[in-house]
C-alpha cells in the first residue's frame, strides 16, 4: 500500500527500475540517466520526509507494512520464549511478552501486537488489549523483577479495547494498577512507542526510566480522529486535531514528556525493517547501560521525579 505522499517517490523508483531493465536488455548507455534519477529519488525522499506534516507521520505510524512488536523481537533478540496468560481469565493475544536474549543479555520484552492480515488482526484485536493483556504484562514484569532482568516494553496500540467484557473485568483498574506498580519495579524499564501510542491503553505499559519514541510514532491522550469527532463534531478536522494535539516524537520531546527519539530509515520504518531494528537495538543497549549504573533506589526516585515534574500550570 502506498500513502499519498509516497506515490511520487514510488513512481520515480519504478521508472528507475525500468531504466535499469533497459540497460540490461539493450546496448544504450543510460548510466548517466540512472545516476541522475537515483539522485532525484534521494532528494525527493529527503524533501518529503524532512517536512512531513503531523498527520502524515500518523499515517506512517499506521502503515500496514510498519514493523510490529514481534517483527522487532525477532530482529533484535537471539532467543525469545513467549510466555502466555494472566493466570486469571485468559491469554490476551493483543499483548505479547517473554524472556529474550539481546547481545548475550536476558531481558523481559513485552509489547502490544497488531495483525498483518484479516485473520491476524482479529486474533490480535487490532492491538487493542483487554484487561487480561495489562495483567499479563504486569505478571511478566514482576517475573522480570524477581529474576533481576531489565524490562523493555514496545507500545503500539490504537487504545485499550472498549468492550462490554473489558469493562466487566475492569479495564480501568487493570491499567491503573500497572501505572502504580511500574513505579515500584526495581529493575531498569525502557519503553518505546514504536507505532501508535493512544491514551491510557498505551500508558498502561509505558512507565519507564526511559520512554522513547520512534521518529514516526505518535503518542497522545486521544487519536486525532476521535479528538476531531469530539471537539469539532466531525471526522474531517483530523489534520487540525493532529496539529493541536502535538503527538509526534518531536513534539513530545519538546514538551519533555519523553526522553528521546529513535531515528527511522529515510522513508519510514516500513521501508527497511532491518535498519529500523538496528536503530532500536542501539538505543535500547545504550540506555540500558546507563541505567544499570544506577541503583534500583536511584532509578525509582528518578522515575518518580520525572513523571512528577510533568505538567505546566500557573
Amino acid at each position, binding site marked *: 500500500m502506498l500513502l499519498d505522499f509516497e506515490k511520487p517517490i514510488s513512481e520515480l523508483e519504478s521508472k528507475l527500475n525500468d531504466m535499469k531493465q533497459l540497460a540490461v536488455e539493450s546496448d544504450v548507455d543510460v548510466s548517466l540517466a540512472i545516476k541522475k534519477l537515483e539522485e532525484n529519488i534521494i532528494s525527493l525522499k529527503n524533501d518529503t520526509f524532512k517536512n512531513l506534516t503531523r498527520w502524515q507521520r500518523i499515517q506512517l505510524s499506521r502503515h500496514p507494512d510498519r514493523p510490529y512488536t514481534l517483527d522487532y523481537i525477532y530482529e533484535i533478540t537471539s532467543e525469545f520464549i513467549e510466555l502466555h496468560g494472566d493466570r486469571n481469565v485468559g491469554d490476551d493475544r493483543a499483548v505479547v511478552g517473554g524472556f529474550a536474549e539481546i547481545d548475550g543479555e536476558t531481558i523481559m520484552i513485552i509489547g502490544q501486537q497488531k495483525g498483518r492480515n484479516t485473520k491476524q488482526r482479529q486474533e490480535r484485536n487490532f492491538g487493542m488489549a483487554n484487561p487480561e493483556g495489562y495483567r499479563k504484562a504486569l505478571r511478566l514484569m514482576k517475573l522480570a523483577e524477581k529474576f533481576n532482568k531489565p524490562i523493555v516494553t514496545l507500545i503500539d496500540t490504537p487504545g485499550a*479495547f472498549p468492550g462490554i467484557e473489558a469493562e466487566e473485568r475492569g479495564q480501568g483498574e487493570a491499567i491503573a494498577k500497572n501505572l502504580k506498580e511500574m513505579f515500584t519495579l526495581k529493575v531498569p524499564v525502557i519503553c518505546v512507542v514504536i507505532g501508535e501510542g493512544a491514551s*491510557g491503553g498505551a500508558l498502561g505499559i509505558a512507565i519507564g526510566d526511559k520512554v522513547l519514541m520512534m521518529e514516526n510514532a505518535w503518542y497522545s491522550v486521544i487519536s486525532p480522529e476521535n479528538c476531531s469527532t469530539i471537539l469539532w463534531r466531525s471526522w474531517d478536522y483530523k489534520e487540525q486535531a493532529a496539529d493541536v*494535539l502535538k*503527538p509526534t516524537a518531536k513534539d513530545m520531546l519538546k514538551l519533555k514528556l519523553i526522553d528521546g527519539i529513535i531515528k527511522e530509515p529515510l522513508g519510514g520504518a516500513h521501508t527497511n525493517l532491518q535498519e529500523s531494528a538496528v536503530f532500536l537495538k542501539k538505543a535500547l543497549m545504550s540506555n540500558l547501560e546507563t541505567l544499570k549504573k544506577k541503583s534500583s533506589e536511584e532509578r525509582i526516585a528518578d522515575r518518580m521525579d520525572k*513523571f*512528577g515534574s510533568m505538567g*505546566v500550570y500557573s
Partner: protein
Amino acid sequence: MAWFNRKDKGIQTSTKDKKDAPDGLWYKTPNGHIIHMRELKKNSYVCPEDDYHVKIGSKEYFEILFDNNKFEEMDALMSSADPLNFKDTKKYSDRIVDTQKKTGLKDAVRTAHGMSKGKPIVIACMDFSFIGGSMGAVVGEKISRAIDYSYQNNIPILIISKSGGARMMEAGISLMQLAKISSKLTLLEEKKIPYISLLTDPTTGGVTASFAMLGDFNIAEPGALIGFAGPRIIRETIGKDLPKGFQRSEFVLDHGFLDFIVDRRQLKNKISTLLALIFNGA
C-alpha cells in the same frame, strides 16, 4: 358569565413591584420528584422520595464532610496554562477564562484539609462543572500535592472523583497526569496511610484508569456511571445496545471493583467508622 370582571386591561403591576421566584429554588429529579432546595441541602443533596443523588461539586462535598464546613484549602489559585496553544472551535485559553468566570472555580479539582468527625482528613474533590471535570496539569499537580500533604502529615486522604477523563486540550500533558498521580500514591503505601477513593457520577476515562481505581477502598455513590470507555464509544465499537445498568455503581460492585456503595447521607459517618476501624489499636 364570569364571577369577576377585569376592570382594567393588560398587566398593571409595574416591573419593579413584580415578585421574583429565584432560579434554582426547586429541584426536579429525573424521576419527576420536586423538592425545595433548602430541603435538598439538609438532606445532603439526596432527594428523600426517590433517593436520587443530585450531582454536586466540591463546595457541597466539603460542606457535607468537613466539621462545621471548616477547612483549609490548598493551592486555591493554581490555574491552567496553555502550553500547547490549543485551539479547536475556541481557544483553550479563552475556554479556561470563560469557565472560571461561569463557575467561580479555578479548575476541575479543589483540595483541602480539615477535620471530619473530629479527625484530620485531606480531601481532593473534583468539579464536573469545570470542563467536564477533566484532568489536566492543574488537577494532576493539585492532587499530587494533596497526596504529599497527606504523606508528610500522616493524614488519611479521600479523593472524590467526578470526571469525564483526561483533558483533551492538554493532550500528552494530561495523559501523563495519570502516571504522575499514580506514582504519588505509591508513597502512601510506604507509610500505610489510608486512601479512600469515592467514585461519583460520572467517573470515566483516564480518572478511572488511574487514581479512582487505586484506593485502599474504592467506594461509590449509588447509580453512578463508572467505567473506562464511555457507553457511547462501546456501543459504537460493538454495534450492540448495552445491557441495563451497565457501568453503574451496582454493576461495578457486582464485578468486584468496589468495596461498597454508600448513600451520601451516610457518607461522613461511614468514612469515619472505616478510618476508626483501621486506626483502632494503632
